[in-house]
């Protein structure tokens, strides 16, 4: 068969075989390449995946960095906002770029009121800080510290200490400045107050040293006077008819007595030991002073006491307080040289606040007693000196010059103060401030006690109004129901109206109309077992036989501390309960 094939045909077949083989091989190669491609592709995807992971990680790092920057930024902003100064950034064109929170709140404005504006764009009341200083800082590229600038807001003037610092970039240009403005208004005020206090302290020291000196002299002088007076009395009592000699001796005695009074005043002024303070009703004191003075005043002088409250209780020394108002009123009428005049006394309650910079008084409630006259008034030049000892405008012999300094000394020991308002020819006004007695202050005048409270109904009678009102207030404070009166007859009437409603009678011993004992005896007819507290003054002698007959009676000896009442009442009511 093969032999019959032509050579050409054989060649074609051979070529065909070669092509077939090559095709098959190429197909296989393609398959393998495809396989490899797939594998490589897989690996490529892995790499892409790895890269993606890297990108994600980098992104996370970037995000973290951004968060950190944001946090730092917030911290910085917080530092700016809460720094104790007004902080603001200005550009080289003096445009406000940024201000801190304190700046906005101080001027009560919003950011849009100030940001991107310069002073010329701003309303007058917001042209705040000096641009002259800004320019100086920008030109000299040097910080400017503690420039005191004044800012007017409405009617208030504020003082600022302003620090300006140029902001420099890396090329040494100054594209703006940062300013720190610190409000020093209060510091200014404090400085002023401080100097005022210092002058007051100097005054007090001066007075104190004079007092020490005076008391030393006064003591010796008193002994000398005692001798003079004694001998003068004896001389004037010697039997005889030398009338003129007796007349001279009487003059010596009169002068000596005046000197003695003067010495008493000096000693009062310089006494350092604290008198034991008791509740004192200023209204009662001033009425006493009125009653005392009125008869001595010429009828042309009108004395008016504007009493706005029934009681004004302070903690103090009755005699000293009495002396204060006697002195002030005497001064007042003596200055009214014209025949006609008016002396007005006012008493009002007032409150001294924490930030009251005008006074050295500690904050709290006070009674302000003003004594006004239409006398000659005080020369303003003398106003500083009137409280100095021995200062007087009176003719020599008419006054000692100790009055007002003694008054000031007393008022100061009572933790009060005196203010004087005066215009020449218009009459001065003396205002005495004395601290109101607060209940929590009771602790101060006795050992601290836990008051024992109660809720019973008590009938209280004491002819001294101030004491009645003080005790009433105290008992109410403890929780008791109190019916009080200063009249023993009225007390008896009140008791008869509802004898069973009272749990206890509290009465003073010595009273007009009906004594405490008499009242108790009447009450006991209706309520034989009612507990009674009988308070007695220290001079009084208790009629022991009569009291011994009375059961359920406790004596409260004056002077007593308020806490005694609370424990005594508690004791009584406890024993009643146990019976």
């Amino acid at each position, binding site marked *: 068969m093969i032999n019959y094939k032509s050579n050409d045909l054989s060649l074609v077949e051979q070529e065909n075989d070669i092509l077939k*083989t*090559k095709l098959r091989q190429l197909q296989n190669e393609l398959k393998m390449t495809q396989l490899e491609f797939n594998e490589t592709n897989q690996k490529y995807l892995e790499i892409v995946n790895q890269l993606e992971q890297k990108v994600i990680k980098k992104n996370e790092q970037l995000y973290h960095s951004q968060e950190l920057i944001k946090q730092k930024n917030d911290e910085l902003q917080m530092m700016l906002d809460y720094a104790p100064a007004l902080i603001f950034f200005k550009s080289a064109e003096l445009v406000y770029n940024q201000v801190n929170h304190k700046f906005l709140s101080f001027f009560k404005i919003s950011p849009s009121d100030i940001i991107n504006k310069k002073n010329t764009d701003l309303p007058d009341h917001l042209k705040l800080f000096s641009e002259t200083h800004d320019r100086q800082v920008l030109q000299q590229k040097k910080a400017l510290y503690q420039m005191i600038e004044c800012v007017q807001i409405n009617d208030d003037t504020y003082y600022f200490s302003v620090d300006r610092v140029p902001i420099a970039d890396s090329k040494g240009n100054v594209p703006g400045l940062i300013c720190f403005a610190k409000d020093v208004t209060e510091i200014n005020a404090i400085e002023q107050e401080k100097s005022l206090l210092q002058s007051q302290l100097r005054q007090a020291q001066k007075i104190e040293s004079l007092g020490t000196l005076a008391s030393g002299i006064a003591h010796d002088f008193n002994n000398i006077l005692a001798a003079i007076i004694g001998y003068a009395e004896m001389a004037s009592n010697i039997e005889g008819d030398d009338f003129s000699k007796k007349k001279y001796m009487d003059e010596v005695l009169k002068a000596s007595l005046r000197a003695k009074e003067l010495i008493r005043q000096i000693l009062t002024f310089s006494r350092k030991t604290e008198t034991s303070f008791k509740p004192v009703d200023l209204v009662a004191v001033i009425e006493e002073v009125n009653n005392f003075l009125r008869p001595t005043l010429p009828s042309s002088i009108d004395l008016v006491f504007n009493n706005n409250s029934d009681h004004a209780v302070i903690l103090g020394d009755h005699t000293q307080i009495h002396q204060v108002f006697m002195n002030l009123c005497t001064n007042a009428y003596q200055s009214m040289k014209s025949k006609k005049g008016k002396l007005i006394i006012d008493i009002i309650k007032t409150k001294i606040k924490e930030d009251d910079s005008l006074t050295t008084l500690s904050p709290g409630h006070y009674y302000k007693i003003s004594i006004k006259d239409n006398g000659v008034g005080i020369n303003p030049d003398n106003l500083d000196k009137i409280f100095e000892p021995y200062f007087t405008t009176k003719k020599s012999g008419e006054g000692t010059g100790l009055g007002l300094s003694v008054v000031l000394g007393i008022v100061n020991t009572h933790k009060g103060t005196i203010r004087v308002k005066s215009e020449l020819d218009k009459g001065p006004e003396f205002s005495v401030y004395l601290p109101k007695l607060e209940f929590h202050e009771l602790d101060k005048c006795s050992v601290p006690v836990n008051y024992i409270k109660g809720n019973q109904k008590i009938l209280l009678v004491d002819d001294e109004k101030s004491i009645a009102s003080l005790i009433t207030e105290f008992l109410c404070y403890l929780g008791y129901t109190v019916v009080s009166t200063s009249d023993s007859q009225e007390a008896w009437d009140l008791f008869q109206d509802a004898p069973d409603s009272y749990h206890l009678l509290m009465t003073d011993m010595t009273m007009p109309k009906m004594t405490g004992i008499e009242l108790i005896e009447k009450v006991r007819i209706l309520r034989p077992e009612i507990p009674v507290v009988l308070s007695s003054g220290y001079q009084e002698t208790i009629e022991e036989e009569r009291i011994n007959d009375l059961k359920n009676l406790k004596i409260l000896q004056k002077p007593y501390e308020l806490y005694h009442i609370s424990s005594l009442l508690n004791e009584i009511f406890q024993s009643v309960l146990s019976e």
Partner: protein
Amino acid sequence: MNQKQMSLNELKQAIHNSELASIKTVLLELIRLINDPSSSAKQLKDVVEIDPPLSTRILKLANSAYYGMARRITDIQEAIIWIGFDTVKHIALSMKALELFMGNELDIFFSRSNLWKFSVASALAGKLIYRREFKELGNDIYALALLHNIGLIMLEQFQPEIFKKNLMNFKSGTKNLNEVEQNALGFDHALLASEVMREWDFNEKLYLPVRFHHQPLLAPRHIRKEATVLYLIDQLCTQKEYGFSDLANTNQFTYKSSLKLYDLEELALESIMESVHEDLTRMEQLGWF
């Protein structure tokens, strides 16, 4: 003048103590990578990067006209992607194997570089037979082909005079070199190479085909295919006169049986050798030889 003939064990010991042994770690690592389908481009990159001449070679290839890259590739990992994972593995392996073929030029007839050229041609041919005829990646065959004649280098290095004498006998006669060696030494270079590879912890799939590549029909069944392909490519590369061949005659029975065993046609092998020729030409242009 008379060189003392060493026994197989003496030779193995000498090789073990020589610098030839020093490349075994890298070779093994590369072969492991090549055979591990899960090995990544990153692992390959790690192996390549610690070897600067190898990195240079791979980047040079990646940037050659053959791949026609528009931009310059400077990253090994990128090069691996573009050249192909397997190609890079083969290049890396070749570069490491080449170190075994470096040395003094002993003879006009035999030189290590001649043997290297033969080995590279064998590797290319083996790979293409696996891919185009068996549709397999043929990773092992590439390494096998590169290394199947290293026994000659060992003999040349450690028994140069005896090796030269054997060469003379081979050149003047019609016997293949391994037959000459068998007669003179009692073993041949294929056995020596195989034994050393075994000692070097090479896989059985590598050292056994080397041992049987002159007698593929006697090879154990599980490596017979590799041994047969090694045998065939030796024949083909000898015909094409690529470098040094240790063959002087072809046993037609073995040859025909080998072809038949794996359903290979001469025509197909001829076509593959054309491709090998093209590849070799390009490699020569890149300065491989």
